[in-house]
């Protein structure tokens, strides 16, 4: 059953990649999709300037409204993300995010593996409040997009490879972006989900809903024998048996901890009390 869950998880991640990037024609026309689906923010972390992208990048949209929107409050994007988060917290991170899939796949490469310091989890909130909100509002520029490794991978590299005009316009910022992407690609091999755990502002927003979300794993401490099998398979290295770890902002709801041999972890609905 658990093997099947893992298989479904991977299939779902690939489905997310394809559904969010179904406009393959974009590679042929060397441009991007301009249809009405761009009204919707993408639930996962996916750059809208990717030639195949069907939806808007939620973080790009957030910065746009903060910079130019009425009252500078991104009601539409926060409402959209809140609806998903209220149902299952960070489930998109675990089951549909294309950038999460890339991290999972690269981490399968044999190499020495490093832990991610737990303190760094707060960095994503610094990035969300500082870079995505404050810097965008003060400077009027989407600075997160300017540094985003997903944008480089999904938009920068393909579009500059296909368009000589765009290639000529690239400068130092493009080089910086390539450097950031290269650093993250190496980290993806060495660490489990380093971007999701330390940088991703989208994961930071979804994580806030983990405490109230309808669907979540729960641990029966009476049944837990401390074998750590759940920890070994957890993509974000949390210990589900520790105080409300599955309700913390870190859990990406992949449900791999359900493989517990004593059945201590189960899927529940509603909040604790």
């Amino acid at each position, binding site marked *: 059953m658990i093997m099947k869950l893992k298989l479904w998880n991977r299939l779902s991640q690939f489905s997310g990649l394809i559904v969010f990037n179904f406009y393959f024609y974009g590679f042929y026309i060397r441009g991007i999709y301009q249809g009405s689906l761009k009204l919707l923010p993408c639930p996962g972390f996916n750059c809208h300037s990717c030639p195949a992208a069907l939806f808007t990048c939620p973080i790009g949209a957030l910065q746009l409204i903060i910079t130019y929107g009425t009252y500078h409050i*991104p*009601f539409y994007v926060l*409402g959209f993300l809140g609806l998903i*988060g209220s*149902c299952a917290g960070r489930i998109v991170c675990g089951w549909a995010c294309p950038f999460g899939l890339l991290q999972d796949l690269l981490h399968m490469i044999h190499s020495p593996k490093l832990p991610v310091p737990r303190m760094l989890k707060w960095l994503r909130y610094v990035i969300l409040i500082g870079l995505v909100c404050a810097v965008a509002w003060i400077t009027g520029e989407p600075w997160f997009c*300017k540094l985003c490794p997903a944008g480089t991978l999904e938009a920068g590299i393909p*579009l500059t490879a296909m368009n000589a005009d765009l290639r000529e316009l690239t400068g130092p910022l493009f080089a910086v972006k390539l450097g950031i992407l290269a650093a993250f690609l190496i980290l993806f091999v060495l660490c489990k989900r380093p971007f999701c755990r330390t940088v991703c502002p989208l994961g930071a927003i979804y994580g806030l809903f983990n405490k109230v979300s309808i669907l979540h794993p729960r641990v029966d401490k009476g049944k837990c024998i401390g074998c750590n099998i759940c920890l070994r398979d957890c993509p974000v290295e949390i210990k589900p048996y520790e105080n409300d770890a599955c309700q913390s902002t870190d859990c990406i709801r992949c449900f791999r901890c359900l493989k517990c041999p004593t059945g201590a972890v189960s899927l529940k609905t*509603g909040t604790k009390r």
Partner: protein
Amino acid sequence: MKKYLPAIASVAVSAAFLLTGIMMGHHSMIMSYSIIVCLSCIGIG
């Protein structure tokens, strides 16, 4: 039922945010922004 109250409240607030955003025209702002290639995403500028 009580255990679902936080989630229901969160859904209600999110829905209110979404509708407010739509009434303020955020969706069309986002659309007109995202149909143009983002030079920042590419690394130009």
